[in-house]
């Protein structure tokens, strides 16, 4: 809304100055361009969804990019590729467990970072720098480091190492997301709770947590999305049972079963559903 106000004021000042081109760029060129960019971003996703319905001719059930006619076969036989289904459920389990851990650890860290200045919290600056480094460091280096680490300490690669790794790269994102929410937190609400005789645990559960909940949920969603989509680190630290992205990557050498697009479409739909829901919810509040 402030945008419109400033735009009007600009027009007034335009009149003061005299002849100036109308703001055509904002009305026509930019929107057209922006919609083209959005189309470019959506295009491969549309292709993925459409080709999940493509018939396969020939012996091997692999996706081909000539259009052979419509079929819902792959949706009916979504679980027909054993390795793929196993990989998918493994990814879901890893994402759930690592989201739970990363959200708890990240939220606690965010509370510590927001509420204590460096004087009362030695090592705070170091933690901040580690978080920054964790977000900015190239993933392949983290994956390579972890692999060497696990091999050195003889930790068998599998579910455990995947969860350890996924929590590691999710914590920083959860902390940042929760911290953004906490910065506007009114501490007097907690004090009021204590004044009214609430115990610390009750205060946290009944006052603090409900207030920071949107931030915690946003952080958890982020951790889940990071985990379920992670390929680079997972490729280094997974054992003989690969998670979904690693399985798909391995399949590119021999060919992709169409069910990959079914799973891809399902993940996309759930993700976009959550995103749109969050928009609707935030609209209702304002």
């Amino acid at each position, binding site marked *: 809304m402030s945008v419109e106000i*400033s735009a009007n004021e600009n027009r007034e000042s335009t009149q003061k100055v005299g002849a100036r081109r109308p703001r055509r760029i904002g009305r026509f060129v930019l929107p057209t361009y922006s919609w083209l960019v*959005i189309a470019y971003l959506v295009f491969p996703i549309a292709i993925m969804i459409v080709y999940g319905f493509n018939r396969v001719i020939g012996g091997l059930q692999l996706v081909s990019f000539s259009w052979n006619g419509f079929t819902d076969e792959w949706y009916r036989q979504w679980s027909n590729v054993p390795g793929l289904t196993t990989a998918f459920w493994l990814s879901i389990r890893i994402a759930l467990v690592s989201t739970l851990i990363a959200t*708890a650890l990240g939220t606690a*860290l965010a509370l510590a970072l927001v509420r204590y200045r460096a004087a009362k919290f030695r090592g705070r600056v170091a933690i901040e720098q580690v*978080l920054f480094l*964790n977000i900015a460091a190239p993933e392949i280096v983290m994956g*390579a480091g972890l692999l060497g680490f696990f091999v050195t300490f003889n930790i068998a690669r599998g579910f455990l190492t995947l969860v350890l790794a996924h*929590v590691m790269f999710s914590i920083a994102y959860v902390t940042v997301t929760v911290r953004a929410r906490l910065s506007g937190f009114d501490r007097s609400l907690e004090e009021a709770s204590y004044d009214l005789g609430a115990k610390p645990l009750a205060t946290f559960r009944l006052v603090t947590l409900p207030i920071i909940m949107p931030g915690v949920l946003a952080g958890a969603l982020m951790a889940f999305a990071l985990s379920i989509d992670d390929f680079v680190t997972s490729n280094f630290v997974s054992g003989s049972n690969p998670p979904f992205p690693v399985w798909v990557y391995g399949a590119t050498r021999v060919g992709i079963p169409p069910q990959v697009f079914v799973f891809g479409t399902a993940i996309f739909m759930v993700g976009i559903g959550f995103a749109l829901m969050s*928009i609707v919810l935030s609209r209702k509040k304002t």
Partner: protein
Amino acid sequence: MDQSVSTDHPRSVEKQHHSSSWGKKLAPYLLSLPASVWLLLLFIVPLASLLIESLETCSPVTGACVMTWSWGQLPSQVSLYHQQFITSLIFAGIATVIDLAISFPIAYWIAFYGGRRKNFFLIMLLVPFFVSFIIRTIVWEFILSQNGVVLTFLRGAHVISPNFHVLGTSAAVIAGLAYNYLPFTALPLYVAIERIDRRVLDAAYDLYANRRNAFLRVILPLTIPGIFAAFLLTFIPAFGDYVNQEILGGTSNTMIGTVIQDSYLVNFNYPAGASLSVILLAVSLVGIWLYARLLGSRTIEDYL
């Protein structure tokens, strides 16, 4: 986990309690302990151990590695794979510049003209992230393939010759990188532009700036931190990326990520992989350090 959060809560200790001062003093440490230990053990230690690993020598027969302090490993790997490093720098650099050019106008439009639909447009920018990175890249492989949608259409329109191909070329790799990392560029730019105080812009117009000057001398300088953040968040992952190159590229344009992955997972030559990772990390750290130095390490959070 929630339990530890609640019991160590900073306000958890009432003033009349004996433990009050102790609880208060320990609270930040107890709250940050689990996450710090996790990051120390699984982030800092593995990164540091890369350096150690790069000095080891492994027996090609048994695969056992011993510390031999072979400092020559790093330079020899550089001379062996400098071409792949250069390729990675160039590909990531071009892709990042393309992304900055593509996303600046749309970020500007959403920030200034998005109105009530801002959130919707932001989600449209993020849309690629809702599909697996690997699947996105595979779909591009199909789109750009010889009998894919784009080339079939262009051949039909006689724009390109029948044996024109995109897959396997450097252009395909750069295009894939640019697509996959575009949201990393667009979001920081949007945040930076959105933050510009509109009154500053009005002031510029009141002082008779034309639109060109207002853009070049007000908007652009104010978005520089965002541009830097966008550059960092796009360039570093693109620099270490190997998926786009492996799926969309050929054998002549190998990037350093591919070499690292193969050292570890194909050739099981950990010291070589570790040396290359250390160099990759060092190059990234230069950018990270510059950013932290110029803009402060916390500011990157604003752009996530």
